[in-house]
């Protein structure tokens, strides 16, 4: 197969309309997948409250501005129309009704309260469009005492146990980098959304989806939770070591802060490893010849591994280990990642041009490739960029009325 080069005569979600109230990370990342494969998305913002990522530095030339941030774009990579709409204005409510009638899917990522206040809870949406699909995603879900609490991905790594599972045994946990879970929760939403769209196709019924990002992310660590429920065990971080492999770690290589990960599981891999570091005798050495002996003498083993790796370049270590049938991987920096030939093969970095931030190669498509469908990217939209098209062409609002809406700050 030839990933990403599939044909797209008529994309599957052609004709599916998405009204997108989401912002920040999880919501937009979720909705993007519908846009990649043909859905029409209208992102709703307001001048009073633009997408929060529009205010995140770094900015073009260091000058803040809603179109100048470099990170906003990372979440807005599928084709999207962008409109502004003041939901507090009485006239805004009329426009919303028209937009909901147009939509098949309404998506939002606020804590409980915001959509209700705007009269956009599921019951109300259904009155306007009986077979509407509504995706709601927030940190704690839309029931329970924490439903009104704002959340973000910097917290969820803590709540989901991933932080406590990342660290050295002799220190407080290091935790994960960045808003890691903002890249897990959306994948669940894509699964729910597409399943719901197919269900609606078959049954004609709408669907309400309430994602607690916490509840989705916990799926990934469910064995750890079962271990507590069943065995009363609280698993903790243990550096890079695991119980059933050695050597298993990240080893310093030649150069400044250069490293290579090596993971030896089987007898054959252990033999291949010893050949590679030119110490075939090690394989027979009673301190290291069995898994149990290697685990027992792991500190000493790690020293021997690093005595060798530190004299070789990381890429050479990886290639020689791989040639010997041992899993090994360079610890890539952002520079290495930008040049990684495998990521290149999958078009991981897409270049797009934006009127304010210029040409950037920081945009990413879906995490899979389909043999018969390509995907479409879109540059991040500007605030209210498509007001004219959406309000006058799509909703058919006369020009004079459109101008009045602008003057009255409805849009």
């Amino acid at each position, binding site marked *: 197969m030839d990933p990403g080069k599939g044909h797209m005569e008529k994309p599957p979600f052609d004709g599916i309309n998405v009204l997108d109230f989401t912002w920040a990370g999880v919501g937009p990342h979720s909705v993007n997948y519908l846009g990649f494969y043909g859905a029409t998305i209208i992102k709703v913002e307001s001048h009073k409250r633009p997408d929060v990522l529009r205010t995140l530095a770094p900015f073009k030339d260091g000058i803040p501005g809603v179109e100048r941030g470099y990170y906003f774009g990372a979440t807005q990579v599928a084709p999207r129309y962008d409109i502004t709409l003041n939901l507090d204005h009485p006239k805004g409510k009329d426009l919303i009704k028209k937009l909901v009638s147009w939509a098949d899917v309404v998506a939002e990522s606020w804590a409980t309260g915001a959509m209700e206040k705007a009269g956009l809870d599921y019951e109300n949406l259904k009155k306007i469009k009986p077979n509407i699909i509504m995706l709601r995603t927030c940190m704690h879900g839309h029931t329970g005492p924490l439903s009104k609490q704002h959340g973000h991905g910097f917290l969820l790594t803590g709540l989901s146990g991933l932080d*406590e599972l990342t660290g050295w045994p002799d220190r*407080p946990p290091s935790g994960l980098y*960045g808003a890691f879970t903002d890249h897990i929760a959306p994948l669940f*939403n894509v699964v729910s959304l597409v399943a719901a769209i197919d*269900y609606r196709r078959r049954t004609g019924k709408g669907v309400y989806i309430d994602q607690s990002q916490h509840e989705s992310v916990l799926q990934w660590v469910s064995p750890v939770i079962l271990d507590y429920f069943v065995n009363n065990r609280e698993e903790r971080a243990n550096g890079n*070591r695991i119980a059933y*492999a050695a050597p298993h770690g990240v080893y310093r290589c030649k150069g400044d802060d250069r490293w290579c*990960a090596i993971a030896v599981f089987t007898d054959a891999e252990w033999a291949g490893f010893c050949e590679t570091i030119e110490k075939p005798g090690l394989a027979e050495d009673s301190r290291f010849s069995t898994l149990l002996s290697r685990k027992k003498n792991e500190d000493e083993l790690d020293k021997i591994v690093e005595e060798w790796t530190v004299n070789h370049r990381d890429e050479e270590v990886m290639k020689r280990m791989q040639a010997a049938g041992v899993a090994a991987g360079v610890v890539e920096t952002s520079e290495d990642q930008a040049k990684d030939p495998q990521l290149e093969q999958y078009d991981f970095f897409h270049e797009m041009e934006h009127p304010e931030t210029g040409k*950037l190669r920081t945009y990413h498509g879906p995490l899979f490739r389909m043999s018969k*469908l390509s995907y479409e990217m879109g540059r991040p939209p500007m605030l209210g960029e498509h007001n004219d098209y959406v309000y006058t062409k799509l909703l058919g609002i006369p020009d004079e009325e459109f101008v009045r809406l602008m003057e009255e700050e409805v849009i």
Partner: protein
Amino acid sequence: MISDSTEGLLSPYRVLDLTTERGFLCGKLLGDLGADVIKVERPGGDPARAVGPFYHDEPDPEKSLYWWAFNINKRGITLDIEKVDGREIFKKLVKKADIVLESFEPGYLQKLGLGYDKLSDINPGIIVASITGFGQIGPYRDYKSSDLTIWSLAGEAYVTGDPDRAPLSPSFPVSYFFAATSAAAGALIALYHRAFTGVGQQIDAPAQLGVAWACGPEMPGLWEVDRAIVKRSGGIWRRAQTGATCDDIKYVSIPIVFPCKDGNVRFVPFIDPGMLPSTVGMTKWVIEEGFASETLKSFDWSALDWQTVTQETMDEVMGSFSRFFLTHTKAEIWEGAQQRGITLCPLLTAKGMAEYEQLSIREYWEEVEHPELETSIKYPGAFAKISEAPCAIKRRAPLIGEHNEEIYMTELGFSREELLALRQGRII
């Protein structure tokens, strides 16, 4: 509670799940939504039944908690697809299936004559989703992979961990789950597409792509814009300020993980309108309890400009928070934060998650019967609350060959003699 509803969003569909422990999660998610997922494992039991932890620490193939967690909502059969009879039986199953999931090394199924092309000859609508470390093509395609090496090659390791030690990965492997979860998404998009075209296709989900994406915008962004390399900094956020070239990029560092009396908490002083009250509320609390520096006492968060604020100022501000947290327990901090509308969280272990009130109130945990052990066990439940056709646990993970008779005899029409022959021939 096991759901009474028999309908799920994916009820009409059948999934054949050939995956190893790298891909179990994919079929589990489809099963949660009601698909009829059949886990196909080797005669005698899947090697991944040796993946721990285990029920009561008994390393029995029927007691792997890893197997239980990720094979829930599936039926199970044994089948050796490396044998001729096994392949023929598999092809029969493919005729009536919608999706095949696999996580073998690239090329393995092709070698057995069970690649996508062959399967689509049998059933043009079949969708094959492949979960791998690096994908079906490219220079790393045949690289041996493990969780740690993918995490490293995808860029996450370099930014994870403490600055004075080696790059780090989580002690519970999650790299392949990016591929497993997104493969489920891809398979469903293919399924929807098939409704209009009648033809299936192949999904190629490489874990490296997902883990690289999870590095977020900052790491690749600062390289692209400023030729700056983000380094690991533990619980400190080095927040990029301004700069268009590497020479003049500046950072302001703030702690976002704070040690407290009995563990750690996360708090980030965001100042967008939605989060400002939380940051101001936290500040008031620190002032009330007498931990605030003079700088924090007179600090106006709403006027803070992250672009220009000095490190010295932020040290004085955040230092007050650090001192405050150290004198309190996680429980005290959590309770106070709830009363004051402050958004923060304790770093939870499994115990903390099990006791997290919001999850219990939302009835997240589901009690699942294990009649073979005469017990019932609490599991994480639905990954989303879905109306009409709920996401729910409908059955525990299958025992070895538990549904062999049901599928081979009732569905495929093999006689008991044939079943016995297949078993004795180690085909099932």
